[in-house]
């Protein structure tokens, strides 16, 4: 088509785009496209992340990490995935077969559903039709509350998987995991409330916009950030708080009996939870996509998230594991009173 023909088409297109029904259909179509893109990207994220984690682990412990498959072991995660695909899917004879089968999916769906409201960047305009596309799937006015609530649901899959395995290690792992996650969820949400008090909005987009121009919340809520970070580490079951899968005492914890793709899905859940926790930390405390203007917002966002993930990995290979009673007393006796105090002091200051 020539230039003139396209110009001739534009008024017709604009007429179509002003029809409310067409707009509605277009928006639903756009949501579908965004959902598919985001889900597929998040689904494949564990591949680079496991590689990164093993390389970080290797270099921190003064060894090389994976080196055999592909140059510098870059194909290692792909090989692992193919291996898991061809493994036998064992369902123990004493297990509850249906709960055992669906538990990985139950824990996987909520961590993906969190991404429905996460903003990755500001609005961009598609040329020619002047159609504004937002870099988030939907901007909920209860954003942060939704994220906390839905992310908390993933504990159901873990405890159901642990119970349905009918194995003592798995049951204990599931129980520990649920007790730990609900204990630290309190401190986590109290830390988020400090941010909400400053921003006066629950929407994640508004929270990021309020931090533009280096007014990052970490400068106003340093205590809140520390609480958020520690509680986040416990919430996603990582060292120093990875008691649910403490090899020394529990075997592999709640996924002791799992194998093949179901095991892979539990691992996937864990990595995606780590990504969403990093994203949440960046959105709430590090200004989201805000940054110096020589790079687009989305690039800043990705850089911050990767740095945050690196920090999580760094802590994993630096600190020893806590005992379970220590974990519980940190959560209830230190973090919870501290976060309540943080809320009250923040309230006194902003009034």
């Amino acid at each position, binding site marked *: 088509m020539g230039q003139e023909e396209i110009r001739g088409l534009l008024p017709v297109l604009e007429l179509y785009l002003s029809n409310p029904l067409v707009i509605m259909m277009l928006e639903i179509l756009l949501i579908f496209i965004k959902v598919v893109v985001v*889900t597929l990207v998040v689904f494949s994220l564990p591949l680079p992340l496991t590689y990164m984690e093993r390389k970080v682990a290797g270099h921190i412990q003064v060894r090389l990490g994976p080196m055999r498959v592909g140059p510098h072991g870059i194909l290692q995660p792909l090989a692992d995935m193919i291996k898991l695909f061809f493994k036998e899917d064992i369902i123990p004879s004493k297990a509850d077969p249906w709960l055992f089968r669906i538990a990985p999916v139950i824990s996987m769906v909520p961590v993906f559903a969190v991404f429905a409201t996460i903003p990755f960047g500001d609005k961009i305009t598609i040329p020619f039709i002047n159609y504004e596309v937002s870099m988030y799937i939907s901007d909920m006015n209860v954003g942060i509350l939704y994220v906390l609530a839905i992310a908390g649901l993933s504990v159901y899959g873990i405890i159901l998987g642990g119970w349905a395995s009918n*194995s003592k290690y798995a049951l204990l792992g599931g129980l520990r995991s649920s007790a730990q996650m609900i204990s630290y969820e309190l401190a986590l949400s109290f830390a988020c409330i400090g941010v909400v*008090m400053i921003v006066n909005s629950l929407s994640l987009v508004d929270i990021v916009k309020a931090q533009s121009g280096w007014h990052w919340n970490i400068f106003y809520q340093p205590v809140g950030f520390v609480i958020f970070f520690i509680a986040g580490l416990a919430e996603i079951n990582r060292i120093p708080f990875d008691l649910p899968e403490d090899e020394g005492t529990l075997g592999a914890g709640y996924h002791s009996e799992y194998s093949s793709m179901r095991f892979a899905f539990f691992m996937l859940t864990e990595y995606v939870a780590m990504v969403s926790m990093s994203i949440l930390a960046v959105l709430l405390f590090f200004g989201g996509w805000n940054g110096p203007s020589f790079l687009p917002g989305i690039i800043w966002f990705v850089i911050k998230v990767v740095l945050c993930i690196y920090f999580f990995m760094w802590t994993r290979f630096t600190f020893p594991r806590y005992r379970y009673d220590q974990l519980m007393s940190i959560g209830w006796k230190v973090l919870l009173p501290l976060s309540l105090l943080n809320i009250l002091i923040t309230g006194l200051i902003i*009034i």
Partner: protein
Amino acid sequence: MLLTYLPVLIISGFVIFIATFVFIINSIVSPKKPSSEKLSPWECGMEPIGEASSGHFKIHFFIIAILFIVFDVETLFLFPWAVVLRDIGMVAFVEMFIFIAILAVGLIYAWKKGALEWV
């Protein structure tokens, strides 16, 4: 309103679809050679004694769950309060202070009774 919450449903459906698809492919390509040893619960090589899922677990987990519910409801009250705190001002702050103080008394009580000790 519909367009705000529709994506949650679509994402959940799409993830379940992918998971089912992966499970089906996995069940086609993976070997199936079950044996009674392979299908028994893993307990470091010992014969498993009793049923794990009959529910013998430490009562502390239950106490933690009850405490959690109390404070989780508090969180739910705090979120809307945090949004409107600047508009309402001192009155809202004092009211929430009393609310948190009452709950803090509950926490101190549980603490003194030893509900948080893990022995």
